[in-house]
C-alpha cells in the first residue's frame, strides 16, 4: 500500500526561536500588531510504501525520531493518509 505522511516539526516550546522572533518583528512592521507569537518549524512530506497502516506508522515514527527531528530541540507530529 502507498501512503503519504505529512510531518510537522517544531522547535520545543521552551526554546528561543530567533527565526520566529525576527518574523514577528516583520509582521509588526506590516501593521499586524495582534500577532502574539510566531514559531517556525518545518513541513516534510514523505511518500512511502508499507504493508499496512501500522507498518507505515512505524516507519514514519522511526524516520522522525532518528533523522527528521532532533528530540532535544524539536518535536514532531504527522498525519498518515493512504495515497
Amino acid at each position, binding site marked *: 500500500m502507498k501512503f503519504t505522511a505529512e510531518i510537522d516539526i517544531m522547535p520545543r516550546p521552551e526554546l528561543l526561536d*530567533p527565526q520566529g522572533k525576527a518574523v514577528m518583528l516583520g509582521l509588526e512592521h506590516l501593521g499586524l500588531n495582534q500577532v502574539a507569537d510566531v514559531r517556525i518549524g518545518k513541513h516534510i512530506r514523505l511518500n512511502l510504501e508499507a504493508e499496512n497502516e501500522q507498518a507505515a506508522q512505524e516507519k514514519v515514527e522511526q524516520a522522525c525520531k532518528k533523522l527528521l527531528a*532532533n528530540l*532535544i530541540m524539536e518535536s514532531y507530529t504527522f498525519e498518515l493518509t493512504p495515497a
Partner: protein
Amino acid sequence: MKFGVVIFPGSNCDQDVIQVLERVSNKPVARLWHKDHDLQSCDFIVLPGGFSYGDYLRSGAIARFSPIMQEVIGHANKGGYVMGICNGFQILTEAGLLPGALLRNTEQKFICRNVHIRPETTDLLPTRRLEKGKAYQVPIAHGEGRFYADADTLQRIKDQDQVMFRYCNSHAAIAPDTNCNGSIESIAGISNEGRNVFGMMPHPERAADPDLGNMDGLLIFESLLEAVPA
C-alpha cells in the same frame, strides 16, 4: 598516536586540521573518506568544520549517517578519542556521542570573527597544556552554535567536569556581551562522560600558524600529544 581526519562532502576545514596535526605530530595524518568503513588504525579521529551535506535538515544530521560514522561511533564507545570542531561538534551531538544540541545563534546571523574562550578544566586531553583563568583568542564561524542542554543534562555536564571551554572576554571574564551566540552558560566546548569525545564550536586550527598571526589554538593540538602512549 595516529591522527585521522574524516572528510565529508562539504567539509572545508579538513586541510587546515590535517596541516596542523602533521606539524605538531611530525607524522602523516590519515584522510578518512566518509564513504569508507576503515579508520586505518587511527587512535584519534577528528571531525572537521564545514557544511557537511549542505547543512540540510539540521547541521550534522545527515553526516551522522555517513558510512564511516558507524566506525567512529564504535571507536568512541570503545574509549577511542574523537574530537569535533564546529560542524564536527554538531555531528557528534547529532550522533549522540556528546550531550545537548547546537541551535541557531540567538542573533540569527552567521558569526565569523575572533572571540576569546577560557578552559574550564585542564583535566581533558585538549586542554591539558592550557592555563585555567587565561583567555585564548580563537575564531568562530557558525550560524548554529548556540549550545543547549536541558536542566538535568546541563547539571550532569557541570557536575562531572565536562565543560571544556566557555566564551569570555580578553581577561577571561564572562559577561552577557561575551556570549557571542547565546549558548547556555556561555559553553563553547564540552566532553562526554568518558572524557574521550570532545566538541567545540571555535576553530583552533585557524589559530595555529605563525603566518596567521595567532597561535593560541596551537596549544590545544599540542595538548593532544600528551596522550601518546608510546
